[in-house]
């Protein structure tokens, strides 16, 4: 199978990741589109025989970082977001949106690690290579993201009793 076809086959996975990463459907598809265009233009830089999925997600990561930089004012890179008002649970659809929002409130770099591990089911090693960070950083971001998300879903501020892995 040639690379172009394999890229096409990976589009649904890019869309899933992008949707979780940026939340809104059309913004997510914009990100996917920019990623595909860039990947297409840079395909000669991809080394045959290496992991195309990891390469493509690296391209997406770079495109995303650039886009966020371009409109940082609207992004939630900040650790300290204002607390959302508490709402009583009102059924599944709302729970889903709560999860959406909780993810949106994670710092961007933690969100990326968590999503690559859980949605893409990448190994920690693959995540490290995809994002260009050491594996220790992958692990600390992963555990911080989870603890924060867990606290948010429980409606409590994250407790600072994490055992940080070096």
């Amino acid at each position, binding site marked *: 199978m040639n690379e*172009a076809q394999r*890229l*096409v086959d990976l*589009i*649904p*996975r890019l*869309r*899933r990741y992008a*949707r*979780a990463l940026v939340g*809104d*459907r*059309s*913004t997510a*598809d*914009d990100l*996917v*589109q920019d990623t*595909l*265009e860039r990947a*297409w233009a840079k395909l000669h830089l991809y080394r045959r025989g290496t992991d195309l999925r990891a390469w493509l997600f690296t391209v997406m990561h770079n495109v995303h970082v650039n886009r966020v930089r371009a409109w940082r004012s*609207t992004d939630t890179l900040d650790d300290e977001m204002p607390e*959302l008002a508490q709402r009583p649970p009102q059924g599944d*659809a709302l729970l*889903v*949106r709560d*999860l*959406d*929002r909780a*993810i949106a409130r994670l710092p961007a770099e933690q969100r990326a690690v*968590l*999503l690559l*591990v*859980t*949605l893409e*089911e990448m*190994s*920690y090693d693959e995540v490290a290579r995809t994002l260009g960070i050491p594996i220790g950083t992958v*692990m600390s971001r*992963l*555990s911080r993201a*989870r603890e924060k*998300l*867990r606290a948010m*879903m429980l409606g409590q501020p994250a407790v600072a009793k*994490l*055992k*940080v*892995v070096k």
Partner: protein
Amino acid sequence: MSEPSVTELDLQAYADGKLPEERRAAVAAWLCAHPEDAERIESYRRLAEELRSTYDPVLKEPVPERLQRALRPGRARRVAMVAAWVTLGIALGAIAGWHLRAMQPSAPIATDGASLMARRAAVAHATYSPEVRHPVEVGADQEAHLVTWLSKRLGTQLRPPKLEGVGYSLVGGRLLPGENGPVAHFMYQCNRGTRVTLYVRSDMGSNRSTAFRYAREGSVGVFYWVDGKSGYALSSADISKDDLLNVANAAYQQLNPP
């Protein structure tokens, strides 16, 4: 603990199902003796499951055409297509604009049902479009559910128009109380963040149709029309009348196919 030490790395990997079998057993045994950690790791595992069940449906969505096009050579064709759309939009706008001048009443807005609808639509737009966190009740990520739900409540099959051709994509929608019953309210956004909303009534009861009309309520401009029992009003506060007309035309073409 006399047990072989279990690290946080082991625990994370355990939650992800990434441990080799023998290590897995050792960590499971360790967790039995540490219920607090066991509870924490179990919640991580559930969270991962919840994430997958939330976002996996995206894998089954049809891939939008524009994404497939992104991988095709010949971007010139895409540019040409955009240009064609823009030209078409301008042409439609010009035609409708000319009609509009011809039929715009010089008197202030009458108080018939359609005008009241336009007024309510403008108020709904002004109320919901500035919302950052809760612009809609159900997002476009659940479009099928949204359409089924609102169709059921309005008692008629709704088809929110696709406005990507004029640069707007669906954000989602909500149910609103209208004059006599429920009203559907769809919100669209362009990539610069400006929003338009489409207000849909199914209880006009006049069984007559009107052409486009334009009204202004404060800073909100509204194009509205009636088609049998259905009434539509498209509002925006952020774009010019001509631009709004262009969007209204696109919506009109889809909602009232010739």
